[in-house]
């Protein structure tokens, strides 16, 4: 089963007006490892034409990326107003 299909099983209440994680493109541009693309279990970080692409909509709020990024690019805040992922089992 592909990760995209697994993520599609999840319920999200997406906050369209607030991204709880942001990255600094100027740092990612010169990043030597892009470890975030391997570490993030929700595949929010991908390389497209060797450029880092980040989308917060699939985020499961685990906090892996803020630890994974050793270059200070990731800013991580908790989602607000009960937005984000909603597990039925957990």
């Amino acid at each position, binding site marked *: *089963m592909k*990760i995209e299909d*697994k*993520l599609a*099983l*999840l319920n999200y209440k997406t906050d369209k007006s607030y991204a709880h994680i942001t990255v600094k493109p100027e740092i990612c541009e010169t990043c030597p*490892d892009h*470890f975030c*693309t*391997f*570490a*993030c*279990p*929700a*595949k929010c970080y991908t390389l497209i034409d060797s450029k880092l692409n980040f989308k917060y909509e699939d985020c*499961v*709020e*685990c*906090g*892996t990326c*803020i*630890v*994974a990024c*050793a270059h200070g690019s990731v800013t*991580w*805040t*908790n*989602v*607000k*107003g*009960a937005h*984000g*992922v*909603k*597990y*039925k*089992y*957990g």
Partner: protein
Amino acid sequence: MAEFDVIVVGGGPAGASAAIMMAKNGINVLLVEKADPPGSKNVSGGVLWGHDLDDVIPDWEKSAPLERYVKAKAVGFLTNDSLVNLEFRSRLFDQKKSGYTVLRARLDQFLVKKAKDAGATVVTGVTVDKVAFENGKVKGIEQDGDIITSDGVLLAEGANPRVAIDSGLRPPLSDRDVAIGVKQVIKLPEKTINERFNLREKEGFAGEYVLGYLPDTVEAGGFLYTNKDTISVGVVVSMKHLRENNATYSFNIIDEFVNHPAIAPLLEGGTVDEYSAHLVQEGGLKSIPKLFGNGYLIAGDAAGFSFSNGMVLQGMNYAIASGKAAAQTFTEAYKRKDYSESVLESYRSKLMDSYVLRDMYNFSGIDEVTWSKLVHKTMPKLMENVMSSLFLENGKPKEHIIKLILKGIKSSDEKPSRLVSDGVKMLRRM
């Protein structure tokens, strides 16, 4: 006067247990949980070793949403082809039920409801930004620029403790503190689960595995727990080793586990009903921050309280026990009308008297064993070698087991002297 005596940040096992006990003691408690409903952002393996709930919710074994009780516990080593397994299946588990499989979206909702019943004020869907301080002591919590005032704050916000970090009360997490937990809940009929795992009604299986066949430096453990009509299956991946490798996707490692020839038949025909991920506190003593200050305490995963020695993997019981110790400490502060650091520092001695900090000290350095090449690469292969020499008939005269072990040691890519010294170190620390 403050609006509340104590504000609890986080409605998991630590925060809810603390809120229940403080509310029972007449303290005016506010419990703030960012998820709505509570538990819907929480993930655990998860086996609850719930002994500590006895005096929080006396009838918890009857009233809580428990899936199955652990009747069989297994620890296994997986290689590409094999599983070498040690299983403890015992009637002793019937007489003294110790562990229960749980699903956190259900359990935490129950715990928070109990906090409400006990008299705590509960708000859900509200995110705390920071702990508010005035003149060096806690004034309350900050939320979207507003301050809700209290004399004490308990930070029980879980494995990714943003409030504690953003308030400068603990350092940011690093590779040595956490591992990446990835889990799937797989739907299977109750009857099928009973048959496959040799279980009767309400009996459960809990297995933990070393994935000794992952590429290069990557190290991960696997878990498989039976629920009533689902199976929780997942992996815990070392952040440090995944970084060293920098070529393996964390979300693919769970497939390596569920597709293993010894695991796949157990899950066959099941449908994946949920995918989830969560940080796992793994650092032990080194990762524990300062636990108290003028008006605040830190409990549960936010304080790094979880335990893993390769055989035992626990967190919720540490959360509950530390939540209880925090509730007792704040109750003393409430009675003395003094929430200063000199009063709250008794939290530490309470944790030292319980197994929470005692285990952390007794097993300090255990993470160097649980996340080691010896456990994740050398031992699985060695065991497979010994077992295959023992059990694969080849028409040759039999050899003594000790000789097979020595042969296995010789054929491993580690130096024999290194293997022995690491092995002794491992046994000591376990």
